[in-house]
C-alpha cells in the first residue's frame, strides 16, 4: 500500500506538465521567459549601456561638464575636433553633457519610481487588506489627489519646497505618482486576500503584519512590476517638463529635459543641440517600454 502510494505520487508529479523536475521559483521562471523576449532583452541592454556609460563618462572623455572652449562655440558634431556631438553656446562638449544629463534623468526615473512604488504598495495593500471604512477613506484621499492635475501639483510642490535640491524634485515626483500604483495594488489585494492561502495563513495564527508582508505583497507585486517599468519613463518625462519650465535640475547640473529645453532655443542654427538629447531620451523611453512589455508577458504568460 505505502510502496504503491509512493509510486503513484511520483508518477503524478512527473506526469504534471511543467512540474516534473522544474524546481525554479515562480520569479525565476518569469525571468527565464523574459530573457527569451528579444525586444525586452534589447531594451535591457540599452538601459544597461546607457547607465554604465553615464556613470563612467569622466573616464571616457577628459572634458568636464563645465569645461568651456572659446574656440569651439556652437561647433557641429565632428570627429576631427573631438566634439562627437558638437558643442553648445558656451562651447561645452555636448557628448559629455548628454551623459551627465543621463545620470540625472535615469536617477530621477529610478528613484522617483522607487518612492512611488514603496508608498503605493504599502498604501494599497493596507487599504485593500483591511477594507471597510479604512479602505473607503484611503481611496477617497487617493481620489482627491487624483483630481489635482499631476504636473500642476508637482510644480506647486517644487516651488514651495524649493527646486534647489535635486532630491526634492525626486520626492515630489514620487510623492505624486504613487496614486495609480496604490489603486492597482489595492485591486490586486482585494482578490489575493480572498485566496485560500491567505485564509490558511490566518488559520495557522500568523499576525496581520506577517500576512501582509509574506503572503499579500509578494503576490501583488507581479501586477505592479509592469507598471513600475512603465512609470520610469513617465517620471523621466515629468522631470523633462519641469526642467523645460526651469523648475527641475539647475545649472551646472543638467538633464535631458534641460538640454532639450536649451537646444530648442538654438534649434535653427544648431539642431544637434536638440537632436542628441532628444534621441537619448526617446531611445531610453522606448527601451523602458519594451522592458515593461516583456515583463508583462513574462509574468502573465496567459494574457497575450
Amino acid at each position: 500500500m505505502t510502496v504503491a502510494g509512493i509510486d503513484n505520487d511520483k508518477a503524478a508529479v512527473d506526469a504534471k506538465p511543467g512540474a516534473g523536475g522544474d524546481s525554479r521559483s515562480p520569479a525565476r521562471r518569469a525571468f527565464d521567459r523574459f530573457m527569451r523576449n528579444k525586444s525586452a532583452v534589447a531594451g535591457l541592454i540599452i538601459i544597461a549601456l546607457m547607465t554604465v556609460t553615464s556613470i563612467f563618462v569622466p573616464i571616457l572623455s577628459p572634458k568636464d561638464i563645465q569645461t568651456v572652449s572659446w574656440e569651439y562655440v556652437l561647433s557641429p558634431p565632428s570627429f576631427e575636433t573631438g566634439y562627437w556631438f558638437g558643442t553648445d553656446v558656451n562651447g561645452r562638449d555636448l557628448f559629455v553633457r548628454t551623459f551627465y544629463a543621463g545620470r540625472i534623468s535615469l536617477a530621477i526615473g529610478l528613484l522617483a519610481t522607487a518612492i512611488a512604488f514603496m508608498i503605493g504598495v504599502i498604501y494599497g495593500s493596507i487599504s485593500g487588506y483591511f477594507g471597510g471604512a479604512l479602505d473607503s477613506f484611503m481611496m477617497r484621499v487617493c481620489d482627491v489627489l487624483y483630481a489635482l492635475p499631476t504636473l500642476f501639483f508637482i510644480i506647486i510642490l517644487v516651488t514651495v519646497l524649493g527646486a534647489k535640491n535635486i532630491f526634492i524634485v525626486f520626492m515630489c515626483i514620487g510623492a505624486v505618482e504613487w496614486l495609480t500604483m496604490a489603486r492597482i495594488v489595492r485591486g490586486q489585494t482585494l482578490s489575493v486576500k480572498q485566496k485560500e492561502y491567505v485564509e490558511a495563513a490566518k488559520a495557522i495564527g500568523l499576525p496581520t503584519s506577517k500576512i501582509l508582508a509574506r503572503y499579500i505583497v509578494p503576490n501583488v507585486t507581479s501586477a505592479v512590476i509592469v507598471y513600475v517599468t512603465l512609470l520610469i519613463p513617465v517620471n523621466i518625462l515629468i522631470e523633462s517638463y519641469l526642467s523645460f519650465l526651469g523648475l527641475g535640475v539647475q545649472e551646472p547640473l543638467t538633464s535631458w529635459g534641460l538640454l532639450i529645453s536649451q537646444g530648442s532655443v538654438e534649434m535653427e542654427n544648431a539642431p544637434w543641440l536638440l537632436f542628441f538629447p532628444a534621441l537619448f531620451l526617446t531611445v531610453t523611453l522606448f527601451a523602458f517600454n519594451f522592458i515593461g512589455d516583456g515583463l508583462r508577458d513574462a509574468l502573465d504568460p496567459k494574457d497575450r
Partner: protein
Amino acid sequence: MHSTPRTDDPPVLECRDLAVRFAGDSGEVFAVNGVDLTVRAGECFGVVGESGSGKSQAFMAVMGLLAENGRASGSVKLNGREILNAPRKTLNAIRGVEMSFIFQDPMSSLTPFLRIGDQMCETLIEHSKISRADARNRVLEVLEMVRIPAAKRRFGQFPHELSGGMRQRVMIAQALLCKPALLIADEPTTALDVTVQAEILDIFAGLKKHTNTAIVMVTHDLGVIASICDSVAVMYAGRIVERGAAEGVFYDPQHPYTRGLLRSIPSITDDPNADAQVIGGQPPNLLNLPKGCHFRPRCENAMAACAQDLPPLLERKPQHFGACHLEVTP
C-alpha cells in the same frame, strides 16, 4: 460496539447554541442556527450536509475566520475556554497551536512564492521560541508522519512542483506542526481524485490511532464519514437534524433527510438503467425558510404538525438525537 471515546472525558470542543448570520443586501441570513455539539479528545466527529447547509460556516466561526459581514453568536469552548468572537490576538495564539484548520482545495492553500519548508517553519517560529534548525527538524518529522516521500527534497520545493495529494499532505502536516488538540478538516478529500482520497483518509485514520487529537471532518461524502468517524452530525439548512454515533446514524437513521441521503448513495448492485435515487426538490433558500420543519417541502413523511413547529433535537435512542415530529419507531 464502536470504539467511542469515553464520555466522561472533558470535551475538547463544545459548541452551545452556535449561530452564524450574514448581513446581506436582502436582509440577514442565518447560515447556522442553534448548533450544539461536543467533540472529545481522540474522537473523529463527522459533519455532513449539502452545500449551503452551514457545515463549513459553523467551523469557520469556531476558527474566527468568518467573512467580514458574518456574525457569530452562542458559545464555543475550546478546552473549556470561551473562544467565540475572541480578539484577533487571542485567536492568533490559539490558531495553529490548539486548533488547526485544513482547507478544501490544496491547490490554492499554499502561497506560490514561498518554499514548502519556509511556509511550514513560519508556523512554528511564530508560535514558539524555536531555532530555525529545530523548526526544520520538526517540519521534516511531520512531513514524514504524513508519509511524504523524500521529505528533505520536498522541503526546498515550491508548491507548483507538488501534486494535489502531496499539497494536501503538506497542509495536514502544517496543521499538525504544533500538535493541536483539535483538527478541523473542511472537505479535505473533495478536491482530490479517488485513489489519493483513500491515501489521505488513511493518514487521518493513522492520526486517530496514534495521537489524541480530536478531529472534525466536515464533508458531504458519507463514505468518508463511514470510514473513519466515530460520531456524526447531519446538518440541514443551518441546523443539526440528527446526531449520534456513526453506526447508529447509518443503520438506524432517525430523520427522513438522513434516510434520503443514505438511499441516494449509488450501489454497485443497482440497476444501471434505473434513475438515480434522489431527494426531491431543492435545498431551501436560507432567506426564506419554510415555516415549521425546514425539510417539510422535501419530506416524504410530512404531516400537519410539520408545517406548524420546528421539531426540536431530542434524544430518540440512547445518545442518538433527531429533530423530527415522527414517532420513534421501536
